[in-house]
C-alpha cells in the first residue's frame, strides 16, 4: 500500500509542483520551458492515473489512503484522505488526459501573452484542485477541491485583469459558485449531524444500514447538496455565470468551463448516489431542473452570435441533460455523457479557439465565414465534434445522448419531450455555428483575411486527438454491451440488477432522436447555406428572439432583485443606521453633558443655599440612620 500512497501523492502533487515552479520561477524560465513544465506535470498525473486504472480491476472496493487528521468535530474526525475507486479514477483519466491536451494546446495559444507562466501556473493549480476534488475520501477534502477549482476559475476568467468587465465576470463566477458552496456546506452539516461522518465509505454504510434515518432531513441534505451542484455545474437558477465565464482565454473555457470543473456537480451526485436514491422527491427536482435548464439554455443558444457564447450555452444545455439523467437515477448514463461531452465540447472549444486565434481575437460569428479552406484541420475536427454533439449515429454523442433520452422516456414522457426538443435545438445551433463560421464567404476585414492561416501543430494535434476521441468515445458504453456499466458496478450497486436489453421501443426512440438531430441540421442548412442568412445586427433583433438574445433578461432580473437591493440596503445601513447608532452613542454623552450643564446652575455660589441643602442632607442622613435601625 505504501507504493500506492506514494503514487497517489505524485498524482496529486505533480501539478502542484508545476504550479509552484511556474509561480516562483516561471518568468525566468521563459515561455517554452514554463509551458513544457506545466504540461509535463499534468502528464505525470495522467500516467499515475493510468497506473491506478490498470490496477483497479484487481481491487473492486478501491484504494483508500488516509494521510493525516485534518479537522476534528465533536462527533467525528475528518481525515485528509484519498479514495481511488472506479469513479474517481475514471474522472481523473479524462481530467488529466484532456488537461494534458489543453496544456499542450495552450503552449501555442498563449504564446503571445506576456503572463504565460502565470497562465500555466493557474492551469496547474486548477488540475491540482480538480484532482483533489475527485480523489478526496470525504466531503470536506472534496470541498477543498470544490472551492479550489472555483478559485482557479476566478483567476483564469479574470486572467486578462486589465479589463474590468472580465474581472466582473470572474467575480460573478466566484460568487455564484459560492452560493452553491453554501448549499453544499449545509448539506455537509446535515449529513454530519445525522450520520456523524462525512466520509464517503462510512457514510454509505451508515445510510444504507441505518434503520431509522430521518426522511425529511436526508431530503433537505440532498437538496442542499444539489444546490451546491447547481452552482458548480451551472444549472438553473445559478447558471448565468457560465456564459460570462467565456471572458477567460479559450483553453480555459475548454478545460474548466466545458470538460472538467462544471462536471463536478455530476461527480458529487454520482459519488453520493446512495444518498440521492433515498430521496425520490429531490431526484425529481433534479430531473426537472436538468430538463428545464437543457431547454432554456438551448433556446438562448439559438440566437447567440458570439462563437464562445453559443458553446457556453450548449454546455449548460448538455449539463442539463446530464442532470436529467442523474435525477432519473441513471448515474452511469450521466457519467457516460460527461465523458463524451468532455471530448467533443473540449474539441469544439479548442476549435473555436483556433478560429479566434487565426482571426486575432474576433469572436463574433457575423464577422467570420468561409474558413473551411483556410483552416481545414480545424474545420474537420470541429465538424466531427459537431456531429457528435448533434447525436449523429456512430459518433460518441449519439450513444450517450440517446441513453439519456431513453432513460427519460422510460421514466417520464414530458421530460423526454423537453429533452428531445433541446437536442434538436442543439443540432440546429451547432450547425448554425459551423455554417456561419466555415462556409460561405469571409465577412471580416481584409486585414484579417490576409492573415488567415491554419493554426500550428501544437494546436491542431490536441484537436485531432480530441476529434478521434469524440468519434470513438461511444465505444465505452455501447447499448446492450456496456463496458462502462460493468466498470462502474462497484460504485453504483444498482447497475448490477439493471437489465440492458434492446427492444423495438429503443430502436424507435433512437430513430426519433437521429431524425430529430438531422432535422435540426437540416433547418440550419436551409437557413444559413441555402438562404445565406447572416444574423442581424444587435439593434435590429426584435420580438421573441430579442428576449432570447438577451438571455431572457435573467441577468437583469437577478441584478434587480438581488444585487440592487443589497447595494441599496448597504447604502442605507452605511448612511442611516450607522449614523443613527453612532448618534445614539454620542447621545449618551450629550445627555450627560446636558445634565452636567443644568446641574452646574445649582452651583450658583450662594453659600446660603449650599448650607441649606447641607442641613437638609444632614437631617436626611441622620433620620435614615435612625430609621434604618
Amino acid at each position, binding site marked *: 500500500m505504501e507504493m500506492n500512497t506514494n503514487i497517489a501523492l505524485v498524482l496529486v502533487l505533480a501539478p502542484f509542483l508545476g504550479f509552484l515552479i511556474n509561480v516562483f520561477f516561471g518568468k525566468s524560465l521563459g515561455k517554452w520551458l514554463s509551458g513544457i513544465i506545466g504540461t509535463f506535470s499534468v502528464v505525470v498525473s495522467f500516467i499515475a492515473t493510468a497506473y491506478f486504472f490498470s490496477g483497479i480491476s484487481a481491487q473492486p472496493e478501491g484504494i483508500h489512503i488516509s494521510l493525516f487528521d485534518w479537522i476534528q468535530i465533536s462527533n467525528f474526525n475528518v481525515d485528509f484522505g484519498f479514495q481511488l475507486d472506479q469513479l474517481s479514477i475514471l474522472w481523473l483519466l479524462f481530467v488529466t488526459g484532456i488537461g494534458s491536451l489543453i496544456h499542450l494546446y495552450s503552449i501555442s495559444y498563449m504564446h503571445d501573452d506576456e503572463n504565460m507562466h502565470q497562465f500555466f501556473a493557474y492551469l496547474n493549480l486548477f488540475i491540482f484542485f480538480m484532482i483533489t476534488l475527485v480523489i478526496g475520501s470525504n466531503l470536506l477534502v472534496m470541498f477543498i477541491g470544490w472551492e479550489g477549482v472555483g478559485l482557479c476559475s476566478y483567476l483564469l476568467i479574470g486572467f486578462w485583469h486589465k479589463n474590468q468587465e472580465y474581472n466582473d465576470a470572474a467575480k460573478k463566477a466566484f460568487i455564484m459558485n459560492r452560493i452553491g458552496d453554501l448549499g453544499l456546506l449545509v448539506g455537509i452539516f446535515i449529513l454530519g449531524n445525522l450520520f456523524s461522518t462525512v466520509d464517503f465509505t462510512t457514510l454509505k454504510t451508515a445510510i444504507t444500514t441505518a434503520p431509522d434515518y430521518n426522511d425529511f432531513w436526508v431530503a433537505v441534505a440532498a437538496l442542499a447538496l444539489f444546490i451546491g451542484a447547481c452552482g458548480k455545474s451551472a444549472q438553473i437558477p445559478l447558471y448565468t455565470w457560465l456564459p460570462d465565464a467565456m471572458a477567460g482565454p479559450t483553453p480555459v473555457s475548454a478545460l474548466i468551463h466545458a470538460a472538467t470543473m462544471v462536471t463536478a456537480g455530476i461527480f458529487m451526485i454520482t459519488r453520493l448516489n446512495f444518498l440521492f436514491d433515498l430521496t425520490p422527491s429531490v431526484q425529481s427536482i433534479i430531473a426537472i431542473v436538468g430538463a428545464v435548464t437543457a431547454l432554456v439554455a438551448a433556446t438562448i443558444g439559438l440566437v447567440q452570435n458570439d462563437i464562445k457564447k453559443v458553446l457556453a450555452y450548449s454546455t449548460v444545455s448538455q449539463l442539463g441533460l446530464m442532470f436529467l439523467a442523474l435525477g432519473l437515477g441513471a448515474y452511469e448514463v450521466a457519467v457516460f455523457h460527461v465523458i463524451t461531452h468532455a471530448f467533443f465540447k473540449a474539441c469544439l472549444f479548442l476549435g473555436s479557439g483556433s478560429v479566434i486565434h487565426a482571426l486575432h481575437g474576433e469572436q463574433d460569428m457575423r464577422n467570420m465565414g468561409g474558413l473551411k479552406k483556410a483552416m481545414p484541420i480545424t474545420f474537420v475536427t470541429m465538424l466531427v465534434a459537431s456531429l457528435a454533439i448533434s447525436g449523429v449515429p456512430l459518433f460518441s454523442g449519439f450513444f450517450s445522448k440517446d441513453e439519456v433520452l431513453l432513460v427519460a422516456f422510460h421514466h417520464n414522457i414530458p421530460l423526454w419531450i423537453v429533452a428531445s426538443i433541446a437536442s434538436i435545438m442543439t443540432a440546429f445551433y451547432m450547425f448554425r455555428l459551423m455554417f456561419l463560421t466555415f462556409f460561405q464567404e469571409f465577412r471580416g476585414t481584409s486585414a484579417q483575411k490576409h492573415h488567415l492561416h491554419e493554426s500550428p501543430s501544437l494546436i491542431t494535434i490536441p484537436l485531432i486527438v480530441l476529434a478521434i476521441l469524440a468519434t470513438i468515445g461511444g465505444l465505452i458504453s455501447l447499448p446492450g454491451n456496456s463496458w462502462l456499466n460493468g466498470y462502474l458496478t462497484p460504485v453504483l450497486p444498482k447497475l448490477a440488477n439493471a437489465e440492458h436489453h434492446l427492444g423495438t421501443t429503443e430502436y424507435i426512440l433512437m430513430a426519433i432522436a437521429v431524425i430529430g438531430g438531422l432535422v435540426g441540421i437540416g433547418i440550419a442548412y436551409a437557413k444559413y447555406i441555402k438562404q445565406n442568412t447572416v444574423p442581424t445586427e444587435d439593434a435590429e433583433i426584435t420580438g421573441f428572439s430579442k428576449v432570447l438574445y438577451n438571455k431572457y433578461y435573467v441577468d437583469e432580473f437577478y441584478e434587480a432583485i438581488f444585487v440592487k437591493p443589497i447595494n441599496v440596503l448597504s447604502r442605507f445601513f452605511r448612511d442611516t443606521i450607522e449614523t443613527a447608532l453612532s448618534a445614539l452613542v454620542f447621545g449618551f454623552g450629550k445627555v450627560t453633558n446636558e445634565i452636567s450643564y443644568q446641574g452646574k446652575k445649582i452651583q450658583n455660589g450662594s453659600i*446660603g443655599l449650599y448650607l*441649606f441643602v447641607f*442641613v*437638609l442632607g*444632614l*437631617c436626611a442622613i*441622620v*433620620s435614615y440612620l*435612625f430609621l434604618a435601625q
Partner: protein
Amino acid sequence: MSTILIIFCVLAAITLSTAFLTIFSKNPIHSAIYLVICFFSIAGHYLLLNSQFLAIVHIIVYSGAIMILFLFTIMLMNLNEEREVHRPRITRLGAIVSFCLICLVLIAIFINSKPIVGEYVTTGEDYQSIKVLGKILLNEYMVPFEFASILLLVAMIGTVLLSKKEKLQK
C-alpha cells in the same frame, strides 16, 4: 429640686437666651457681647461639671482671645451699625424650617434612643485636675499636642499673610 439643678437651669437659660440674642441682634457689637455672655455661661457649665481647667481655658480662649478678635474685626470693618439687608422671605422661611427640622430630628432621636441614664458611677479617681490632664496630654496625646501647636503657628502665619495688604500690581 436641688440647688445644683437650679443652677444648671439658670445657666442653661442664660446660654440659650444669649445664643438666641447673638443671632437676632441687629448690631454685630451686641451680638458679640451676647456671645461673650454665652461663653461665660458655658464656662459655668464646665465649672458645674467640675472641670476647672477647661473652664479657665475656655474663658481665656473664647471669651478672651476669640471674642476680642471678633470685636476687633467688627470695629476694623466699622460694622457697628446694621447694614445688613434682610434676606428674602423664602430664605428665612427655609432657615426656620431647617432649624425646626434638625431640632426635631435630633431630639426625636435622643428621645427614642435607648435610655443611657442609669446610676452614675463614681470611681473616685481624679480624672480632671490640671495635673492629670497635663500628664495625659503630654504622654498619650504628645504628638497631637505638638501638632496643635504647629497648627496654631501655621494659623498665625496664615493670618498675617492674609491680612497683610497686597502690593498693588502695576
